[in-house]
């Protein structure tokens, strides 16, 4: 009887240890590389007006600003936006903002004062990604709170409110990592 009780206790102890290990694995966060650096990367944020219709890479109403890097970034996003939002095929860049991402301070990405982002860095993630706490602001209120992990080359598209004949979409991406 004593032996069987000891064996059961041992099994339960093993189960408890396994639970502790899994909890530690879930709670584990990789230490930030270069903790002395204030900036942990750069964030690209854009406000895009998505409209139904024939696919086009540029808007009818405005040309992409800063044709060098900005247009390339936005133009590369357009096909992906079309696949993410199949109902829309025309995309017009309203504004964009490149911003360094700071570890200690909140970061405001303001492609437009109508819809903008507040981002807090939660440190780097595996694979070169960034863990963020992101808020989408509309005027003076928060309409979305999310905790994404942005990976290089994998942007985040946030479908916002409708406006006129289209839908406003916010694009968030790690700078310099778009395909």
């Amino acid at each position, binding site marked *: 009887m004593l032996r*069987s*009780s000891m064996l*059961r206790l041992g099994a*339960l102890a093993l*189960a408890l240890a*396994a*639970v502790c*290990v*899994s909890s530690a*694995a*879930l709670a*584990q966060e990789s230490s930030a590389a270069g903790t002395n650096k*204030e*900036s942990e990367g750069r964030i690209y944020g854009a*406000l895009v007006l998505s409209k139904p219709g024939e696919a086009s890479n540029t808007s009818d109403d*405005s040309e992409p*600003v*800063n*044709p060098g890097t*900005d247009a390339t970034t936005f133009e590369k996003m357009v096909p992906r*936006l079309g*696949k*993410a*939002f199949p109902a829309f095929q025309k995309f017009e860049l*309203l*504004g*964009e*903002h*490149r*911003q*360094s991402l*700071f570890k200690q301070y*909140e*970061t*405001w990405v*303001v*492609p*437009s*004062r109508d819809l*903008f982002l*507040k981002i807090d860095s939660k440190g780097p993630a*595996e694979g070169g990604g960034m863990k963020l706490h992101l808020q989408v602001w509309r005027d*003076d*209120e928060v*309409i*979305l*709170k*999310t905790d994404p*992990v*942005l990976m290089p080359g994998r942007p*985040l*598209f*946030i*479908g*916002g*409110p409708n*406006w*006129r004949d289209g839908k*406003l979409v916010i694009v968030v991406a790690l700078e310099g990592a778009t*395909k």
Partner: protein
Amino acid sequence: MSDPNENEELLHRLADGELEQGVSAPELDEVSQAELRSIEALSSMLKAELPKKVEPQYPDFFNSQIIRRIERDEARELHEASPASSGSAAEGSGSTAPAAAGPGGFFRWFPWAAAATACAVAAFLALQGGGSAAHSGGAVIASAYAPASTVQVKTWYSEEAEATVIDLVGLEAFPADREISGQTLASYPVEGLRGSRIAHQLSGPDGEILMTLVAAPGEAPDFFGALVN
């Protein structure tokens, strides 16, 4: 004179009618008689208020548990006496579970099964790298929440777009007559006389720099006046 405790005990035995046969009731003084009458009155009152006999709930349950324990002890003794004997040793081995639990063997292997399952889960989670990656290679949404109760948040990963999508359904549309204006900003840290600052550069459609605003880290660019507190 008799011991007070013995006298009290005698009185109680007299009141309960528990004097041994052949033993006559002793003569009592007035104090003892008064005390005897008090004891008898109390006894009568208690007997009137309380039932004579109280049956335990589910008497059969207790009886069955006692029988199970006896059988288990006997089986254990037999098992210890002949360890090489085959046959079901499960009966009466270790389990004190209620009758509905079935053979005691369940409680022999269950802890091991739980331990093995927990180890498998721990190994799986450890291999996952400590994160609940919802999408392989894509952005991971740990949580998404819309404060407005009328807004529904839908999240998915688009393999074709290679992007994570969050769609807010139910948002109030912007009025059509409202001008949604965008801006092109580039922000970068600078070192000033008062330490680190952030320079926000506003550019026009042709790329020309229209305005540069320097603000402290964490401050919202304030090109259009106060944005948020």
